[in-house]
């Protein structure tokens, strides 16, 4: 019996998504992620949507194992459905969804069978903006700007420097694009196909994908070994 159970634990991730970056702005939450799914070191899938709306008030972004993300979406579907069936005029807000996901992730980790994801949850309910993060070992917190994976090292320093309370939509998008551009340059599993989504009190929009402009024309790149022939 024990040997059958052993083989049903998640040991390593297979198809993974790279970082998600999100920030609070004046009217709500802005979230960005690229559309790549890597199979180890191959860029296998280039059109995976990693930002999904959940219910009326929440936006979920995930990095890590894609199949576990799809499983989480099924759990949340069921949760929202049961909530709607009460038909009591109330609907689950981002704080509630975050709490539910934290319990799910932490319980799975305690059974040594984690959902291999880092999730970013954002939303607005009753005028209150909420942005939080949960990861595969159950660590959860909320903040004004969050990032998963390599985004923590590359995007958070920029956000800590340049974020403020009153960003407009355009400023927020520019800031997210700055972070995603650095990730595109310096994260090997990044793809140049970015999706941005926003959620406000009124509605949630996932914008169509676009690509970022990159700059490769530094004169030092044109002839890098001008001073040191033989090196690179």
């Amino acid at each position, binding site marked *: 019996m024990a040997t059958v159970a052993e083989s049903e634990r998640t040991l390593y991730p297979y198809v993974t998504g790279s970082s998600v970056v999100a920030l609070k702005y004046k009217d709500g939450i802005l979230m960005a992620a690229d559309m790549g799914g890597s199979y180890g070191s191959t860029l296998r899938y280039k059109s995976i949507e990693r930002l999904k709306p959940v219910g009326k008030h929440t936006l979920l972004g995930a990095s890590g194992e894609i199949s576990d993300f799809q499983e989480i979406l099924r759990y949340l579907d069921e949760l929202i459905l049961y909530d709607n069936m009460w038909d009591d005029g109330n609907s689950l807000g981002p704080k509630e969804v975050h709490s539910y996901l934290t319990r799910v992730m932490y319980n799975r980790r305690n059974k040594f069978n984690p959902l291999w994801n880092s999730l970013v949850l954002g939303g607005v309910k009753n005028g209150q903006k909420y942005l939080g993060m949960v990861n595969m070992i159950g660590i959860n917190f909320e903040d004004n700007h969050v990032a998963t994976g*390599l985004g923590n*090292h*590359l*995007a*958070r*320093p*920029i956000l*800590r*420097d340049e974020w403020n309370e009153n960003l407009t939509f355009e400023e927020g998008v520019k800031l997210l694009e*700055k*972070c995603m*551009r*650095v990730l595109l*340059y*310096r994260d090997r599993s990044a793809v140049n196909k970015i999706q941005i989504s926003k959620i406000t009190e009124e509605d949630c929009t996932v914008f169509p994908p676009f690509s970022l402009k990159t700059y490769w024309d*530094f*004169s*030092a*790149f044109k002839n*890098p*070994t*001008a*001073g*040191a022939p033989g*090196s*690179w």
Partner: protein
Amino acid sequence: MSKLEVPPKGGFSFDLCRRNAMLEKKGHTPKSFLKTGTTIVGLIFQDGVILGADTRATEGPIVADKNCEKIHYMAPNIYCCGAGTAADTEAVTDMVSSQLQLHRYHTGRESRVVTALTLLKKHLFNYQGYVQAALVLGGVDVTGPHLHTIYPHGSTDSLPFATMGSGSLAAMSLFESKYKEGLTRDEGVQLVVDAICAGIFNDLGSGSNVDVCVITKGHKDYLRNHLLPNPRTYVNPKGFTFPKKTEVLLTKITPLKERVEVIEGGDAMEE
């Protein structure tokens, strides 16, 4: 079959590793060593090269030196920032600095950055990565401004802007978003300071102050502690006094006398 006594050809001798492993098994804890978990950066601006570094040296989780110097002198026109094991960066930069000076006497010319680069990479490759020094080498010589990174295993890169150390990702994110060609001196120094501050405030291995070094043709500016973003918040205005004074029991002063008499015009020393 007897073993031939072959003299070591170079590199480290790992004879004591088995002994150390046996000691560790018996419970002896090995000493930790001083690392410069670090943020070091360099960039090329319109007139030359600007190097920057933080000033924290760590020994495991403890800050061993709050204000160490990570920008090392190599030649009057070449400076080198070092990350990794503090002893390794100090020793390797000192060694190559003396080699460069001897070379300058031999050739009668100003040192070139590629010379320092080749001497460093040869040494590091020879020790196969065991000398854990990750360096950012920058300088201005007759061929122009140069900036190189050197990794512990001996590979090098030639770049317009570079970062190394544990805070390199935080600093690189700032460089990637703000660097452009043809920066003026003030813009360059500001960008370097911003990048080092990103390392100081976002990386646990880096901290304290910012050192900057600006090298241009024929001139250098070593700005030690250019920025101090982490001052002591509460300082006792009275200073510190030791509670009890040491009692003086006896005072005896013995002046040192010349014992040796120097004879002028004696014989020359024996060879």
